[in-house]
């Protein structure tokens, strides 16, 4: 039973982590909490569903297609909603992300309808049995793909020219700009990548969750909490926060009661904000005057 709970917790944690990385990436690059992140996650699942179940493309192509569309959607979001407000107060930007979330939910309702849509499991084999313990293959897929995606991102972020420019932007926009980095392009890129992470998570969880227009609401909230737990100012804090939250939720519902599952996240959030306001990995924020 412990092993099964562990794997289920890691899988859920990976999903939180992917969505939460979107939060931290955007927060790092423009000090903005993007409340449309959960709905970008939902849109990714919808794109994947369209390619896979309606168009009938092979699975891998559908997922790549879904990620490309998520990337473009993120870029569009930056161009149409955030860029025009680049000189507006932070509150306006925050509200625009909330509005975009609502817009996306209703758009999805119009395009795909309000119903819950089925999404086939990635593998015909639904469970593998290891030493008498049966494990869902989808859980394994989720964990492996997450590791892969984060590794690719890490390589890109640390070792490529673009990645370095992105890091510079996230450290200090003004200095980066003075060094000849096109900051707006970097921000566009950060948001598009965030959206891609969200979309990928949406497609990974779709066979377990099914697909519906409001599927991103709770996930968005939980992932936001995960990113705060890990430290909003630290990109990989989201990973730690996400995995921690996923495991805690599963263990609490397994060993205490499933009725408390949703409370876990909020209790942890309160504890973290009280004792580690900058998150597990976060350093104390210094407000420069």
């Amino acid at each position, binding site marked *: 039973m412990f092993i099964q709970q562990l794997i289920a917790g890691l899988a859920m944690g990976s999903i939180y982590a992917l969505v939460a990385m979107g939060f931290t990436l955007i927060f790092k690059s423009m000090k903005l909490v993007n409340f449309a992140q959960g709905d970008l996650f939902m849109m990714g699942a919808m794109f994947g569903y369209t390619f896979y179940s309606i168009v009938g493309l092979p699975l891998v192509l559908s997922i790549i297609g879904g990620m490309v569309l998520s990337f473009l959607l993120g870029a569009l979001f930056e161009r149409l909603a955030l860029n025009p407000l680049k000189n507006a107060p932070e509150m306006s930007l925050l509200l625009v992300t909330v509005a975009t979330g609502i817009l996306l939910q209703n758009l999805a309702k119009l395009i795909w309808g309000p119903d819950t849509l089925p999404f086939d499991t990635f593998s015909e084999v*639904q469970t593998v049995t290891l030493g008498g313990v049966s494990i869902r293959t989808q859980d394994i897929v989720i964990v492996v793909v997450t590791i892969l995606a984060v590794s690719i991102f890490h390589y890109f972020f640390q070792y490529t020219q673009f990645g370095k420019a992105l890091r510079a932007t996230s450290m200090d926009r003004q200095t980066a700009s003075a060094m000849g980095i096109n900051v707006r392009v970097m921000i566009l890129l950060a948001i598009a990548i965030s959206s891609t992470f969200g979309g990928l998570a949406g497609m990974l969880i779709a066979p377990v969750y099914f697909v519906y227009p409001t599927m991103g609401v709770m996930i968005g909230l939980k992932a936001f909490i995960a990113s705060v737990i890990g430290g909003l100012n630290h990109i990989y804090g989201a990973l730690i926060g996400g995995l921690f939250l996923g495991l805690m939720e599963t263990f609490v519902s397994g060993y205490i009661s499933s009725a408390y599952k949703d409370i876990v996240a909020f209790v942890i959030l309160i504890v973290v904000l009280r004792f580690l306001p900058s998150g597990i990995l976060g350093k104390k924020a210094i407000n420069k005057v």
Partner: protein
Amino acid sequence: MKSKLKFLNGILLLSLLLILTACSTSEGDAASSEGPIILGAYGPLSGDTAQYGESMKKNMEMYFEEVNSNGGIDGRKIQLIVEDDEGKPDKGINAVKKLIEKDKAIAILGGPLSNVNLATMIETQKSKIPHISTSGGNAKITESGNPYILRVVTKDNAIASAVAEYTANEADYKKIGILYSADEYGKGGGEAAEAKLKELGIEPVGMEVFNPGDKDYTPQLMKFKEADADAIIFWGFYVDGAILVKQIKELGIDAQLIGGTGLNNPKFTELAGEASEGVLFGSPFIATSPDIQDYVKKYEDKYGQLPDMTGATGYDAAQLIVAALKEVGTDKEKINEWLHNVKDFNGVTGVLTATEQGDLNDSVKIIEIHQDGSQTIAWDPNN
């Protein structure tokens, strides 16, 4: 300062717009004896349970269109206004208030969910408006003593008792676990099933709860597995049920799933896929009943799918209100009185006779889902 003013202006403009739109749509007064007769209905048209509201709406629209094309009621057309309750009690109250106060509906039909009905029926009682609940099965709806409520679907505790009786006696399972959603619908059914099992001398091997919308049932299922359960009685909605039945198969648990009316929806089979084969559920309605084939055919021709229980109870609610309007006209008190005295009314969900409390139906069948998605009656306690 300037931006503050702008903000205030914006709010003013917005509220003005809201008022204007509110005024422009509130036309027509059902209390008058001319113009269309306005009926209000509500149900979830979005969210996890949207399918229930959609099929209720489709059924009602189909029936009222037919009535209107046959000349309406004494020359007056019926106008149905359907509001979305999103499956939430607070939204349901707003929807019903809007239907009563703004649209001046003379009767309220729906909705499909118990938790919403329990909230909305207080509003209809306050306004003294006849209210025909469709598929909300919680016993409290009619047992609360509200004189304006009626209900088409068989009470959940009656269905749950039949399900428990079938599981323990007819199908002869001995180690039965019960899993129910932590809301009014789930609790009503889960507890009634438990009571019936105890009455039959069987102690359930586990009573487990889940939150509607939960996606992972590993913890609960592992407890059933450790208790060696051979059957699981499930009281919850179709999306949750579909995820559950898939996970039962995935975790290699060899137990029969037996559910309630919540699983009586074609969407359940679609979402669960192969895993739905062999699943049983208790419900008053099955589309293959020989006496309702006219209705089934009409529905299939119009919408290209078979009607389900939630929709069929909506169809019966529509039939009842039209019969009442034809008999006693548009007086709300008279309609309510007529509805509470209905006897042997031929509905598509059974022969309807009103009890003092307002329950109209008492039929139950245990229905089995086959590999191709078709359904047959596995057990009918009345035969």
